[in-house]
Every structure is written in C-alpha cells, then in structure tokens.
C-alpha cells in the first residue's frame, strides 16, 4: 500500500544519525509492514533502520535480540526454540503469516505497541529493552509501556531475555477466531519454584482485553508463597478474570473476555506446571 506525501526515504548507517533524523515529520521503519499500512499525519520522511547493524540474535546467558531481527529470525533460532520448552517460538508461530514474519521486526512490533501476542509473553519473561536517545540505557519492557516510550523518539535497539533456570517454566495461550487474526484474549504466565515446590516468583500477564498486555499483579502475588496446586491455580485465574480491564469491542464482549481469562490463565498455569513436572521425568 504505497504511502502518499512521503518526500524522503533515508537509510542511516549509524544510530546517532538515525536518532538525529527522527522528529515530528519523520517515522522510524523496521520492516515497514505496519508503517506502510497507515497514513501518518504530518510525516514526510521515512527513516529506515534496515542498514543499522541491529539484525542479530545472540544466545549468551539469556538472549540478546537486535531490534531489526525479524520474527522469522527469532522463530528459526535453535537456541530460542529450546528456551523454556520453546514457549517463545511456539507463540511466534501464531503471529501473522510466514510472509509477514519474514518482514516484520521485533523492534517495530514492540514500538507499535498494540495488537500483540508477543508483548504479554515478553512481559511474563521479564524482557528488557535497550533504548538509544543520544545515550544508551536499559529498562524493563513493562516500564517502556508504563512510561509511554513507544510513542517517543527513543530508538529501540535491543530486546533482552534473561536466562531461566530448571526451576522456571512459562506458558502462553491465546483465543482467536481464525488463523492469524488478532487474539480475542491472550495469557502468558511464568512461575519459579523453590526446592520444596513453593512458588517463589510468578508472572501472570493478560492481553487483548483489548488493551495491550499488562501484568496482573494481584493474581501473581496470590500464587507466590504456596504450592502450585489446583486450588491456588483456580484462585489466581478467578482474580485475573475479576481485575483485568476487560472492555467490549467488535471482537468480543467484556463479559466473554473475563470468561476467557478465567479459563486461559488456569490452562496456562496448568501447562507451566506440566512442563516443570515433565522435566523431572
């Protein structure tokens, strides 16, 4: 979908240059798949980040993913496919189509900050971001959205996933009408147990409420400090269903979203628990 009113397409070779080129008349382009679909009022310049050395995926203690790595780069990375029973790659397989994933970048997706299966899972995994706005800094993905930085000039350069030990499991699931449609609701969970089977740390994130995914702290806190048994899982799911900011839109009613949330959080936690049990076999 060609955009009209664009007078310049720039491909800066350094971060400093890219940052300098961004102002109210320009927009950063990762893969371009989202930018090209929407008219941008007042924007006359496209700043393509494709020439920056940001297309990489390094597996160190955790993962360092350059902002212009495509969703396919992530999906096809063997290390990421082995991380936490492949929870990230399994989720990505349901995001867009292969044609979209070959072009869409992780940085572009996170900077867009809407309609996302990726955001809830990355929040559950405590992902961090590196931003460049003259200097470089690292912050949590949660703070990035909390501070509204995805709507700022700051350039997202890297996504970090922390390592996860053998006592940690995660799961993601979504409810959707048809293949590669946006979710009616999605859930991501992560739990870390201590040696006695007590939940030391939990994350419960629910997205497409239809707001962007956000941690449901009350549900996570309710899981912490006790065993991951059926009753505690059901209680966490009830809390999540009650407190999520469910709204009605053309895809689902608020009431239906709460019902989906109750089932989704419970299933995701069962799935994570099953993964932990599976490792002991």
């Amino acid at each position, binding site marked *: *979908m*060609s*955009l*009209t*009113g*664009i*007078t*310049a*397409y720039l*491909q800066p070779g350094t971060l400093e240059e890219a940052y300098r080129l961004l102002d109210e008349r320009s927009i950063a*382009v990762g*893969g*371009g*798949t989202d930018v*090209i*679909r929407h008219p941008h009022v007042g924007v006359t310049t*496209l700043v*393509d980040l*494709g020439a920056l050395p940001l297309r990489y995926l390094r597996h160190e203690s955790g993962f360092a993913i350059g902002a212009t790595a*495509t969703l*396919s780069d992530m999906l*096809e990375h063997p290390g990421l496919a082995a991380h936490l029973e492949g929870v990230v790659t399994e989720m990505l*397989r349901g995001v*867009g*189509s*292969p*044609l*979209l994933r*070959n*072009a869409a970048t992780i940085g572009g997706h996170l900077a867009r900050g809407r309609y996302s299966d990726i955001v809830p899972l990355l929040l559950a995994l405590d992902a961090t971001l590196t931003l460049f706005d003259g200097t470089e800094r690292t912050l949590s993905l949660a703070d990035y959205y909390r501070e509204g930085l995805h709507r700022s000039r700051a350039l997202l350069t890297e996504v970090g996933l922390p390592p996860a030990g053998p006592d940690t499991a995660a799961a993601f699931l979504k409810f959707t009408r048809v*293949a*590669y449609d946006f979710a009616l609701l999605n859930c991501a969970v992560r739990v870390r147990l201590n040696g006695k089977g007590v939940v030391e740390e939990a994350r419960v994130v629910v997205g497409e409420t239809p707001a962007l995914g956000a941690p449901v702290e009350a549900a996570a806190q309710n899981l912490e400090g006790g065993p991951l048994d059926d009753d505690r899982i059901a209680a966490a799911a009830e809390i999540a269903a009650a407190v999520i900011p469910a709204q009605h839109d053309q895809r689902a009613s608020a009431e239906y979203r709460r019902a989906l949330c109750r089932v989704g959080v419970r299933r995701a936690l069962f799935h994570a628990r099953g993964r932990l049990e599976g490792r002991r076999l």
Partner: protein
Amino acid sequence: MTFDLVLNGLRRTVQADPGESLMDLLRRLGCKSVKNGCDDGYCGACAVLLDGRAVNACLVFAARAAGHRVDTLEGLGREGVLHPAQRAALDLGAVQCGFCTPGIVMTALDLLAHNPRPTEHEVREALAGNYCRCTGYVKPVEAILAAAAQMREAAE
C-alpha cells in the same frame, strides 16, 4: 529517488517514490505476476522473494530493496523449461483461476530453500498467508510436496 537492485538476477537502476510499495514498483517494471489482491498484507498474492525470503511486496517499501535481491515468478525457469514448482502446479492441477498461483509458488520456494523435505503440515503452515479464493488448497499442497520431491531428486 533512484537506486539499484538485483531483480531476477539482473542489476537494474530504478526510480521509485519514497513512499511507494515494492508491489507497485514491481508491477510498474512489468512484473505482472506480482498480483495486487488486497494491498493490505492478508492475501499473499503479491509474494516475492526479498534476499531469498518470501514477503508481501505490498507491505515492503520499494526503497528497502535498494542494493538487495528481489525475485519474482518472471525470473523462474528458462525458455520452454518451467521451474519444478511451476511444472508441478501445472501437472497436478494446482491452478484454478490462477490469481494466487504466483504468490503460492514464490512462498513455496522460500519454504523449500529452508526445508527441502517438508511435511504436509509444514506446507500448510507455510501457506498460511496465501489465500486462494477458489478455495483450492488441496492441489497446491500436493504440488508443493511433488515439487519438493523432484527438486531433491535433481539435487542428488
């Protein structure tokens, strides 16, 4: 703006509007296999290879192709000799109205380059972004599996 790209193996110097999509550029250059089905990234009829990966040409800025390799159906096969993926589509009746066929063939080439021995399920997953509104999905899947077998044989 003016830039170079390698289109179907040939270096070309082209002119494009800075906001132009790769689909519109390719069609202007005469690559009419690149179909404008939805112009919104849903149908996959405009799929081309950008540096070997199948993408929706309608969702990629033309200028992104500067200095890169673009392949369309026009670059497949030689005079009188079809590419195995084209041959299989023809032989196995994987074409009804034909509008989606170029996009499906280009998507299949990306799949087969990365996975020479796909299962039927993997072929179906690879085609998730290619709509056939004649709803003839069975034959294209069979054709891609047949093309894969033939390409493996040729490679041996």
